[in-house]
């Protein structure tokens, strides 16, 4: 091969000027065989508690049952090792799967269209806000403080780049967004969008009342609904039904592993009006030269490779394979499986709430129905209670002081269809055994 190229050695091919030669030797890992690699990761894996502890963690990353059929299909090499389907003639399979994903998201959210995915729920929100900014020309956004704190933090990161102002709406005693200041906030039409999440970070169903949505629309403000727990879409009134123009969400719950936070899969659904402002890939249905149904990437004039600095977003690689896993999951579960699953989530969470709040000193922090999460008020600091639970191999939930200093006696607990009654009972027993002193330290 070197002869054909006309050089004498491999090194001749990669010679670089002295000025840019390696300044220090590269020090990475040792070179290992597969057996040794497997052994190393086995040791890494031993240093986590996953599987060994009972977990009530949720808050944007949910433990749901994934039927083995999802992996069996999604890990097929053709899907796994393809890339963005630029060459549609040899990518009809993946393109159709994405078209199906777009349809599932549209049907689940009740909105007209959906894109081929964005990175995750938080960036979906940020991109949705950019859509609203582009639609309205306004440079501020009003966000419920019951939107996932991580999503709000990411929005602030993006806002820094875009010079956006991010204001917040407080939450109320029912754990829902407190809308009492909404009228005033909308008055001067400075907000590009109002953002609420349902179920919100506290698990509360926070669909906007019809009146509020009307007011928002009346001021030509975009209403963005956030969904961090996509499973809820199988049960709850759709974001479209309560007025959302755009729905920004996270679909990890549909057949994707938690995997310490990623890859997960964000989605953006919207009314047709926003079609040309949507970020990322869109698959459309068309025909080939023989009139046969064919799928193809479309409306590419929105995208960076065509429009460069004028694109709706810089996104290129998205989360296609996670969306594929979700599509296979949705197909396998079907409407019956999804509704049953959603119902089980509510039922198990109700059971958790009932049993835990019966304990002395424990209570539900907020009134009102929730989906699969509940904020539990504990005697003393949440952090202490959680620590005591860990001694008993239970990850009891999330210390809300981390995000809401005023809720330092509150734990966000999650139950899904994988939470058994036995799990709940273990939690209850463990909580009842926590020495009162430790729990009531403050």
């Amino acid at each position: 091969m070197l002869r054909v190229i006309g050089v004498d050695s491999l090194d001749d091919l990669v010679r670089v000027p002295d000025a840019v030669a390696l300044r220090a030797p590269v020090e990475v890992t040792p070179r290992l065989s597969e057996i040794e690699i497997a052994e190393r990761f086995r040791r890494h894996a031993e240093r986590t508690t996953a599987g060994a502890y009972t977990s009530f963690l949720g808050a944007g990353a949910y433990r749901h049952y994934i039927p083995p059929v999802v992996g069996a299909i999604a890990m097929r090499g053709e899907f796994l090792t393809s890339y963005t389907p630029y060459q549609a003639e040899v990518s009809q399979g993946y393109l159709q799967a994405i078209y199906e994903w777009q349809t599932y998201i549209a049907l689940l959210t009740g909105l007209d269209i959906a894109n081929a995915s964005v990175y995750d729920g938080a960036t979906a929100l940020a991109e949705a806000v950019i859509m609203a900014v582009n639609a309205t020309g306004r440079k501020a956004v009003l966000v419920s403080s019951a939107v996932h704190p991580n999503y709000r933090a990411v929005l602030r990161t993006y806002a820094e780049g875009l010079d956006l102002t991010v204001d917040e709406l407080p939450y109320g005693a029912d754990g829902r967004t407190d809308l009492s200041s909404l009228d005033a906030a909308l008055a001067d039409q400075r907000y590009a969008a109002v953002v609420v999440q349902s179920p919100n970070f506290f698990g509360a169903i926070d669909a906007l009342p019809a009146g509020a949505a009307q007011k928002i629309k009346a001021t030509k403000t975009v209403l963005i609904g956030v969904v961090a727990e996509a499973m809820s879409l199988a049960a709850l009134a759709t974001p479209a039904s309560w007025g959302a123009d755009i729905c920004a969400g996270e679909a990890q719950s549909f057949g994707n592993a938690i995997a310490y936070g990623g890859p997960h899969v964000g989605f953006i659904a919207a009314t047709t009006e926003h079609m040309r402002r949507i970020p990322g890939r869109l698959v459309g249905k068309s025909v080939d030269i023989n009139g046969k149904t064919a799928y193809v990437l479309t409306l590419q004039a929105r995208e960076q490779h065509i429009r460069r600095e004028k694109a709706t977003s810089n996104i290129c690689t998205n989360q296609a394979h996670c969306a594929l896993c979700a599509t296979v999951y949705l197909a396998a579960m079907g409407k019956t499986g999804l509704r049953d699953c959603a119902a089980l989530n509510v039922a198990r969470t109700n059971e958790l709430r009932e049993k835990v709040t019966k304990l002395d000193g424990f209570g539900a922090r907020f009134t009102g129905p929730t989906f699969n999460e509940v904020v539990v008020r504990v005697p003393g600091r949440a952090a202490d209670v959680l620590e005591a639970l860990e001694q008993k191999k239970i990850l009891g939930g999330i210390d809300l002081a981390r995000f809401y200093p005023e809720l330092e006696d509150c734990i966000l607990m999650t139950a899904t269809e994988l939470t058994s009654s036995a799990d709940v009972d273990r939690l209850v027993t463990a909580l009842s055994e926590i020495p009162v002193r430790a729990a009531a330290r403050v």
Partner: protein
Amino acid sequence: MPLPAFDTPLIFETGQDGRANCYLPAGPALEELLPQDALRDELPLPDNSELDVVRHFTRLSQKTFGIDTAFYPLGSCTMKYNPRINDAMANLPALRDVHPFAPDHAAQGALAIMWELERALSSLFGMAAFSLNPAAGAHAELAALLIAKAYFKQKGEPQRNVVIVPDTAHGTNPASAAMVGFKVLSLKSDAQGRVDPEEMRKVVGPDTAVCMMTNPNTLGLFEPRIHEVSDVVHEAGGLMYYDGANANALMGNTRPGDMGFDLMHLNLHKTFTIPHGGGGAGAGPVGVAEHLVRFLPTPVVRAFDADGKDVNASGWRETADLSFALDFERPDSIGPMRSFWSNFAHMVRALAYTYANGADGLEQVSKLAVLNANYIRASIRDVIDVPYDEINRHEFVASAQTLKRETGVRALDIGKALLDRGYHAPTVYFPLIVPECLMIEPTETESKETLDEFIAALRDIVATAKTDPERVLETPINTAVGRIDETRAARQPDLRWRPA
């Protein structure tokens, strides 16, 4: 066996009530659990038996081209083999199921993986530190430009708002610049396809924020004067950004840090054998030089030895005796870029790949990638234009300009003809500066036999174009569908199925 050409109805067009699969134990109905007005009216989705689901997606997969199917020389995308050990490691239950809100001491193994990878990348690319936070290359570009913006703001130079990109740059570079409110200045490449330091000197100034480049550039050419370019930009007070999409060309050979770059990203899914999955998920670690470390996105993984001593600045080392923590308290940080800490499953894959190679192996990877690309170039240059016919790196661009003039066959058509012969097409019409461009990146995992067959196919297509161009223009015919009416797709957008 249904051929790939067989039609596959949409999943919404099949299925029937009563075909639900039994995944879940019985439970109460939603109506008994939540108030009626909180519930949706109906859920208009199909119930399909698992068999029908399996058949549906099996057929779709057979109509999808992957690296596992055949040669995939898609330039700039580094479609190399994805070792299956990577997936096996990522799927270990105790890694796959760790919750991002698990307390640090319940996630030490996951943190160790992230730390080891971050240290390895820093050494390999000459950066002080990486953040594994961003989800893809473009996302990392955004993070880096936010870092630059924060840096200049803190430095009291908020007026720096121009990003200089060569005209060969990838679309995400200018698009990312726009997302932080920077203006884009496109710099013309010189006759050798390179960035000329003297030209750079003419455009830099007090408004220069960042110069975004890649090396080898998107023509596959090494920029030999990159250090001079860096000097010019630095002297003008700007920062140098390295687009790591081409990192497969230079591992162990030279490093962005050594070339003077202050910021960079990696497309981990390209260089580090993460399956591209039909367009993601990827992973885009963002790396920075020392003076920018404090701006990195949150959280950052920190390591401590048995005595509690901070060992973050150390090179890669064994982690069994280290302990780790996620650090969110970083006042200068630009903040988080995404919901959680990283595309962690991909960090497992990337670290597995690093283990499988070590420093020597990675150096060899790049050398062989360069060898393969040059071999193809040298083997086709007599039949098709190679605008920059010199030693290239891991990829190169050919052009169908002459061929088009003589026969009417364009780059696009060559791509389609390659599809017909069982190959994926090269990247076409990028970079923008080469007309009728075909960007060919074979990667190091292809054998000489595969390259030879591809070369023969390409030569034969060119020969056919010259004798019988119609036969090329009517390709592909061996694929599931023929050429697609893209205009119709864009003019009458049909983006979803609707119930009848």
